[in-house]
């Protein structure tokens, strides 16, 4: 069964360093998302991406964050200068097509720890 895959599964980085989280969405999907979940809290929306551009972003997704789809398969989230409060599980998700009720399929997540 097709699935969203994320790498690495766990990333430890020093405060102020740049990190890139990688995702391979399901191959025929058109919409891509990043969500995050701070330990013990809700899953929160960060950004959605369609047709090679950001379609929506949350207040969390400030100038330190960027997304890219560098080729036909990968979807990346870059955090330019990490802060302690960026420590969280980051989930990539994809949806098959742009319609109002489309389901989102999530990857296993990357646990980011900023020290």
């Amino acid at each position, binding site marked *: 069964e097709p699935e*969203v895959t*994320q790498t690495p599964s766990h990333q430890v980085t020093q405060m102020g360093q740049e990190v890139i989280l990688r995702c391979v969405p399901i191959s025929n999907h058109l*919409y891509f*998302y990043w*969500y995050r979940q701070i330990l013990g*809290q*809700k*899953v*929160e*929306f960060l950004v*959605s991406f*369609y047709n090679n551009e950001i*379609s*929506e972003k*949350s207040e969390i997704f400030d100038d330190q964050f960027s997304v890219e789809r560098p080729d036909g398969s990968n979807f990346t989230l870059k955090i330019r200068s990490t802060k302690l409060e960026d420590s969280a*599980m980051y*989930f990539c998700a994809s*949806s098959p097509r*742009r319609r*109002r*009720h489309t*389901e*989102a*399929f*999530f*990857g*296993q*997540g990357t*646990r980011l720890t900023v020290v």
Partner: protein
Amino acid sequence: TQLLEQSPQFLSIQEGENLTVYCNSSSVFSSLQWYRQEPGEGPVLLVTVVTGGEVKKLKRLTFQFGDARKDSSLHITAAQPGDTGLYLCAGMTQGGSEKLVFGKGTKLTVNP
């Protein structure tokens, strides 16, 4: 700001019992999805409900979307230890937004 409140937050029952968990909001959602999440893993989609009053069944799980599309429930019949996990509801907001708004989840433990 759309909020989804899930209740109860924690539920511990014996194998064979029935249970219902709830997902409530003051906002209307265009659709609502139920996920199950294991510790350290991503949410796994169980079902999507779209139409007010819609009922969907997935084996021993029954999902219902409220008539006004503001609330939903998940009923499990004859719970088994394998049902143990965190159940999340997530609503897709109206007005063209593509984001999902998640509840905090109900942590279910089914004891053998």
